[in-house]
């Protein structure tokens, strides 16, 4: 996910694994010798890591096999910025050493899609939605989060702090007005496999409202603003 230089030639690497969740590894001489690790420890790369336990929780990296360096991300700044944002969201929301195989799959497929010139705005929406869903933070969508009334075709509001969608009589002035079609689109999207990023089309209203809704949900669950968000907004 990222690395920081340590000492003269070593690196401490943040890894996200299918079985062991987020881990930190120590890569001795990673900056000096290209033979052992090469470019495999660069952010967004998918690798097979051979490691042994060291002192404390830090993995001692022995060797890596590069599976996919996702070089496509390095040719487009908005995609690179979005990939960084996604990685930071996972870092902030997933506890260290907590196994999350579905989120691992989600992140891998998301990065693959972006590296292959995928559409940035749709990819962000899908990633954020699925991430909050897989982590159990998905708000109430198709019914009022307070009176549990199932919505018919009617105006509704959304307030993440109050649990999600709200009927007008429960909502009062809180939250913001949201089209039920947007909520419906997002609910239907959650029925599609989290690995799929192609073949989605969202209208401008849906993209705008869903973006606002997800931003509100994320601001409630994130411990701090992602550093990469400011960068992403510039491009």
């Amino acid at each position, binding site marked *: 996910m990222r690395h920081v230089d340590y000492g003269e*030639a070593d690196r401490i690497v943040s890894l996200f694994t299918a079985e062991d969740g987020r881990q930190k590894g120590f890569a001795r001489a990673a900056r000096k010798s*290209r*033979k052992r690790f*090469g470019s495999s420890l660069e952010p967004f790369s998918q690798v097979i890591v051979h490691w042994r336990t060291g002192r404390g929780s830090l993995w001692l990296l022995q060797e890596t096999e590069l599976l996919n360096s996702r070089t496509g991300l390095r040719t487009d700044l908005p995609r690179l910025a979005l990939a960084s944002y996604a990685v930071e969201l996972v870092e902030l929301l997933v506890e260290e050493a907590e196994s999350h195989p579905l989120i691992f799959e989600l992140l891998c497929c998301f990065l693959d899609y972006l590296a292959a010139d995928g559409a940035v705005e749709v990819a962000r929406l899908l990633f954020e939605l699925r991430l909050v869903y897989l982590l159990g933070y998905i708000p109430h969508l198709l019914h009022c989060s307070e009176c549990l009334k199932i919505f018919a075709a009617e105006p509704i509001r959304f307030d993440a702090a109050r649990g999600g969608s709200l009927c007008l009589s429960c909502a009062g002035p809180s939250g913001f007005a949201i089209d039920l079609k947007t909520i419906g689109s997002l609910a239907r999207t959650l029925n599609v496999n989290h690995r799929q990023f192609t073949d989605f089309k969202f209208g401008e209203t849906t993209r705008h409202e869903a973006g606002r809704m997800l931003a509100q949900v994320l601001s409630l669950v994130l411990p701090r603003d992602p550093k990469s968000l400011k960068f992403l907004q510039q491009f």
Partner: protein
Amino acid sequence: MLGSLPSFARLTAELGKLPGVGSKTAARLAFHLLRASESDVTALAEALLEMKRKVGFCQRCFHVAEESFCRICRDPARDSRRLCIVQEPQDLLAIERSHAYSGLYHVLHGALSPLDGIGPEDLKLPQLWQRLEQEPLEEVLLATNFSVEGEATALYLAKLFKEKGVRVTRLAHGIPMGSDLEYIDTGTVQQAVAGRREL
């Protein structure tokens, strides 16, 4: 153990702040200085102070310099139509050692890093745009590192320079000279194949 030697402990602590110097190396260096002659230690202390007092950054390119402008910026023989952009002064020195480039430089003192929140405003970019207004350029050579941060910086600069109608080039990357393919890492081989050229 060093509590009874406060001056020794202080030196060890200061040396330990240097990059790549851990506590053991700091203690080893301190013992070396303890055994060295007083004139050698004085020379080292004076050299440190003199460097700190005299060396700053070139007002034009932000390379290290003892005067307002560095040696390269003062050299009239350099090709002022070409500008090479590097991340750090050490990168500039690496290109100078190659004797393959005779233009001017601009040192950014960092690279864009979305994950660390380092944006364009954190680099020597306003100074670069100011230079552009005063110095007509034919070519900009982007020599930032081939890390994600270096590539992000190169992409960002390439877009802006192209909008200004300046020719943008990037350092080539691939298999190092004199090396055996079988020992090259997969990522480098992938890049080398993708960037292959006709002979």
